[in-house]
């Protein structure tokens, strides 16, 4: 049985092995993949909501249009904002600055090992992109954008 499973999974497992070895060796790549995964999950969830709204028969046409436009703009803006925040925070310079700030505030981490540095990088990027950028900045941008998109869709429908 074990040999059969290995034979079936060989082509997938080679790619997965390369990916995993790269992630273990390179902390930056690990952080980038985690950020990319979170962005993909967000865009995907917005797409699923869009499909569910379009299939729902209990919603009025006007509200349907508005909700569709909202989900579309939300997905695009959230993705773009998270990419921008990740690019801002993943740099070595910004990481050094953030380490200095954390040392001043909490006194930690004094002598960071490689693993602690990687974890700090992942934590800061995820907190900055998933909480600050996506939850606070994105809704401020999305609400006026949706009205603009909705107007355009209304014109198209007429």
């Amino acid at each position: 049985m074990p040999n059969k499973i290995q034979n079936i999974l060989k082509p997938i497992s080679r790619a997965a092995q390369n990916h995993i070895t790269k992630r273990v060796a390179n902390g930056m790549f690990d952080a980038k993949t985690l950020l990319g995964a979170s962005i993909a999950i967000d865009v995907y969830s917005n797409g699923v909501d869009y499909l569910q709204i379009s299939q729902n028969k209990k919603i009025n046409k006007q509200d349907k249009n508005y909700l569709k436009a909202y989900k579309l703009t939300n997905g695009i803006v959230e993705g773009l904002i998270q990419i921008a925040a990740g690019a801002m925070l993943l740099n070595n310079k910004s990481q050094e600055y953030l380490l200095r700030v954390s040392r001043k505030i909490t006194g930690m981490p004094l002598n960071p090992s490689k693993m602690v540095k990687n974890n700090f990088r992942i934590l800061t990027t995820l907190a900055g992109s998933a909480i600050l950028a996506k939850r606070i900045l994105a809704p401020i941008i999305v609400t006026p954008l949706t009205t603009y998109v909705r107007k355009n869709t209304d014109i198209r429908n007429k």
Partner: protein
Amino acid sequence: MLTLPFNNYINKEISKINKLNRSSIQLKTKNNMQRNGFGAGKINKSATPPDLLKRAGLFFKKTYNSVLEKEIGQTASNLINYTGKAIISPLMIFTIAPFTNEKKDSIRNSAVLHPIQAVLAFASSLGASVITNKILDHQAKKGTLGNFIDPELGNFFNPAKTNGKNNLAKLKNISTFFLTIIAIPFAGILLNKILPKIIKTDKTNQENHAKKGKLYA
């Protein structure tokens, strides 16, 4: 005649010792109450704001340090994402609400919707990932996943090159990512079933299709 004062002396001494003992016992009980007592002792000790701040700071430092030393993977990123959705997005809705023309009911409902959605999505993904992680651990110990992911055998044969434990952790991250993607639509279906039971709308609201649409979205 000599015995009486002696006795008196002893009695006095004993009474003194007893008093001391009592006082010491009382002190001990007080200290124990303050340390381990439920409610009153702790409140008395932590009533002053600087103490509270210090305790909160120490707790924050401990958790921060422990988090940095552990491995942060896909589940942690999911947790960060969904806690943000549960806590911050309702607050943002209430802050943006005065600038929009929506009614109070719809604003309240949309604020309630976000935490429920976040909890459902996180719970479904976590439940699936815990089960698969256990299966992966079991299979890795058996050796069905090969030497690359074997945490024990791989290190024994090739201690310098193989990194079985870390490889297993990364494999778990990949599996949890795909499981969250699978779990999101199921969480949406669950939400559609649960929401009408939690948020009780009026009859007029039920007749109004627009509000219903916003609830079900």
